């Protein structure tokens, strides 16, 4: 038989978290859907307009261009993060000396805010006084308009994202690699498998759970890219690096079309869901084929 204290205790412990959770997370999550069916400027009472926001959004080429741009950006950044993160992790699971120092160095950019990363690279990539262009010229190349040429800016932002996020996923890969039994490698070596074959047939398949996690988390993080771009390019040149969250922020808080912006967030939510589910499905499909 429980005492009244034992009965009440769990609820009292949950109370602070659940209170904040309900008011500032659960309610907004539900309310977002409601808002997306309204015309609302953030001040005056909202007016129900049915599907109008969605109908307008469907024809909004600027928005869909931004969605496409975000997906292209994701397509460049995520594989880059995956490959660099895994490569660094592999490097740090060899027997070289000073691994913990290197790990800290590779992780360092993850500690810096997106705003400062953006500012730093804007300084380094400057056309007139940037050190990157200086290095290019002394190696015989021509200065590049990294951030002011629409054709380069998206790739430049992707490179910087990879630089700033690879260390985070490297840490995940390291702990994934450490769970792989070394006996597999020994057995494969005896059978005459070379390093590349061992990587392809042992490391990659056994690393699949970690790979999936890295892909899902990095995709979600990359799709939400916004502060980095604020500091780096302001979304320019000519909107070339204006991604979804940027458009939603502008629509809601600068143009005061809160209802319309809510409809946009539903698209963002849908996109995140679909990409996550696809990656789960894709990875599970791969697994059954192998077994």
């Amino acid at each position, binding site marked *: 038989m429980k005492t009244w204290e034992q009965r009440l*205790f769990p609820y009292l*412990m*949950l109370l*602070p*978290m659940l209170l904040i*959770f309900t008011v*500032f*997370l659960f*309610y*907004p*999550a539900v*309310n*977002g859907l409601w*808002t997306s069916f309204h015309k609302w400027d*953030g001040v005056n009472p909202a007016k129900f307009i049915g599907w109008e926001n969605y109908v307008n959004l469907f024809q909004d080429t600027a928005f869909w261009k931004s969605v496409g741009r975000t997906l292209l950006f994701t397509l460049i950044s995520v594989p880059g993060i995956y490959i660099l993160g895994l490569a660094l992790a592999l*490097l740090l699971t060899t027997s*070289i000396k000073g691994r913990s120092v*290197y*790990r*800290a*160095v*590779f992780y*360092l*950019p993850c*500690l*810096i*805010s*997106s*705003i*400062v990363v953006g*500012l*730093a*690279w804007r*300084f*380094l990539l400057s056309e*007139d*006084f*940037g*050190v990157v262009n*200086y290095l290019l010229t002394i190696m015989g190349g021509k200065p590049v308009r990294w951030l002011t040429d629409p054709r380069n800016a998206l790739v430049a932002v992707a490179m910087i994202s990879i*630089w700033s996020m690879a*260390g985070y996923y490297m*840490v*995940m890969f*390291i*702990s*994934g690699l450490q769970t792989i039994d070394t006996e597999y490698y020994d057995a494969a070596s005896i059978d005459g498998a070379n390093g590349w074959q061992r990587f392809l047939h042992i490391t990659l398949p056994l690393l699949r*759970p*970690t790979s999936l996690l890295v892909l899902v988390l990095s995709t979600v993080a990359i799709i939400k890219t*916004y*502060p980095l771009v*604020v*500091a780096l390019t302001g979304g320019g040149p000519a909107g070339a690096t204006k991604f979804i969250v940027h458009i939603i*922020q502008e629509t*809601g808080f600068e143009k005061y079309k809160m209802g319309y912006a*809510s409809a946009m*967030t539903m698209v*963002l939510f849908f996109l*995140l869901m679909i990409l*996550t589910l696809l990656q789960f499905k894709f990875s599970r499909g791969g697994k059954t084929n192998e077994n």
Partner: protein
Amino acid sequence: MKTKKVVGRIFLYLLVVLACFAFLMPILWIVFSSFKTQSELFAWPPKLFSMSPSFDNYRLAFSSGDFGAYFFNTSFVAIVATVITVVINTMAGYVFAKYRFKGDRFLFMMVLATLMIPLEVIMIPIFKVIVATHLYNNLWGLIIPAAASPTAVFLVRQYYLSISSSIMESARIDGASEWRIFTSVMLPIGKPVMAVLTIISFMWRWNDYLWPKIIINNKQKFTIQLALANFSGEYSVDWNSLLAMSVVSMLPVIVVFLIFQKHIVGGMTTGAVKG
């Protein structure tokens, strides 16, 4: 065979040095540049070291702008929010792991369901609630709303699930109250997961931009990130003070990271992989 191995090792070290250079050099360049004079900043060819390094940029940043106020605002938000976040989510996660009560499954599923909903998706309705609760342009508006974290609840719950309940039983037999069991027996055991929450929360709060951007409009209440973004958007960017401010803004997170590093490398990844 032996020479092949030596060549391989040399190649490995070359790779590591190259990678370190690529990761460290951009940051070092910014740090060294923050000690340069204006003409040195824009000199061609650019040089890593200043001929006459000085703290002038730092003095300028702290005296001309309100950088001191921004630093205070950010510290206040990051520290208070981290304390609240760690306390309330540890309490909740612990209860979800160790108690069976009416509605426990339902409540936990409700928390889990929002795990996949990032702030970016709910920023419009959040704004609505912030205005209604008079937290707009208020530092508490930065602190309270994001304090309830489904991810944190989940991490804490996973952690306590791995710990046996038998200590709780024996404490109960000894006549300890539930609250006492929590504070003097279970809480000390939870130190590792709380360390992880501390660093994640502090880092996020210190570096966050989107949340302050939505909630703070008054310049007096700016956080460092807001201020940096604001200055960088000005017509002519004042790189001298901007670089100095950027360097100062990096320090607290690096310090906190160094203190908790031991926990984060192990703890964060096990939590993440399990999750």
